[in-house]
């Protein structure tokens, strides 16, 4: 036997055998063991005829397996931290703290980004609202949007066909002076800054469309101011009377102007500055 026997089983040296050196003794013993019946036979014998002295060994082996099973269960059942030593725990805690600090700074960073994005989106919404408002205002001014609101309806009855373009134009100017915001003639033509007026065959050409009497002017603005603007001497009504026509003015609750213009892109004018 090349290996020293382990703690496990070598019997204590009997006092009488001290004169032999140990190696010699071990050799003798292994020879003895070799002389004994085969290992398998001995195992068989001890299996079939258990002796009382085996009980203690059985108890110890049972203790070992009991502890081993307990340890295996403990290791797999409980969480990772329960079996750790203090130093290991401190290390784990440090690691967790570092991770938490990192996560905190990440949260702060992300919150900052979120606030920035929210601000910019707020600004964008405000800008969009403003732009929409402006678009509505400009759309009414330029006649690209239908309009509705308080105002007056003027009907010029011109049976003789003598109502002149100049008088119509004067009348519209007076209405504008009185604060007319949107004007429509005969439910067909929207009057805006670029609108042209000309004499036509049996009527008046407005923006290239021939309009015939009676002329209906729908005007949005303050009804009282507009009505008064028609009345002053040498004004709208007098002009119509001069051309031997008649004027009827009514004040509906809501004046609807549905005629629109397609906007024209300026060819020469560009925004200055």
């Amino acid at each position, binding site marked *: *036997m090349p*290996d020293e*026997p*382990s*703690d*496990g*089983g*070598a*019997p*204590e040296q009997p006092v009488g055998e001290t004169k032999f050196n140990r190696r010699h003794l071990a050799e003798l*013993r*292994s020879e*003895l*063991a070799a002389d*004994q019946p085969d*290992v398998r036979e*001995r195992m068989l014998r*001890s*299996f*079939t005829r*258990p002796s009382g*002295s*085996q*009980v*203690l*060994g*059985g*108890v*110890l*082996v*049972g*203790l*070992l*397996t*009991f*502890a*081993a*099973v*307990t*340890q295996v*269960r*403990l*290791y797999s059942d409980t969480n990772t931290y*329960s*079996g750790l*030593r203090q*130093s*290991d725990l401190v290390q784990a805690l440090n690691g967790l703290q570092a991770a938490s600090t990192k996560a905190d700074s990440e949260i702060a960073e992300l919150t900052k980004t979120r606030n920035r994005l929210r601000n910019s989106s707020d600004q964008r919404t405000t800008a969009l609202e403003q732009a929409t408002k402006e678009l509505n205002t400009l759309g009414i001014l330029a006649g690209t949007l239908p309009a509705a609101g308080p105002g007056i309806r003027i009907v010029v009855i011109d049976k003789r066909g003598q109502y002149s373009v100049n008088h119509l134009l004067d009348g519209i100017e007076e209405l504008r002076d009185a604060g007319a915001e949107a004007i429509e003639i005969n439910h067909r033509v929207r009057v805006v800054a670029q609108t042209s007026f000309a004499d036509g065959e049996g009527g008046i050409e407005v923006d290239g469309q021939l309009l015939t009497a009676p002329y209906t002017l729908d005007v949005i603005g303050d009804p009282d101011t507009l009505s008064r603007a028609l009345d002053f001497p040498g004004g709208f009504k007098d002009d119509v009377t001069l051309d031997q026509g008649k004027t009827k003015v009514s004040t509906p609750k809501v004046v609807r102007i549905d005629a629109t213009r397609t906007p024209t892109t300026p060819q020469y004018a560009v925004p200055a500055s």
Partner: protein
Amino acid sequence: MIAVLGMILGVVLGLVFKPDVPLWMEPYLPIAVVAAMDAVFGALRAYFDGLFSDKVFVVSFISNVVIAALIVFIGDKLGVGAQLSTGVVVVLGIRIFTNVAAIRRHLFHA
């Protein structure tokens, strides 16, 4: 025979009772188990060598467990518990390998 019975009984008891290990014992239990395994394999080897003795087995079993636990305990007190338990496990592992090699030679003559 009785040892095999004891082994089975230990596994069954451990599984059935699911004992709670006291907190102070938790670091020592794995080391104690490895030390006891060393004692059992040593006993098995001695048995095959024909040198087995109950008394030596009992004493070696208990002293192995106690000494292993003691080393780890002292290591914990000195602040090198983790390293010392690693050392104990390595040493016991080498011994278990040696014993199992001797058993193998007996059983398979190789």
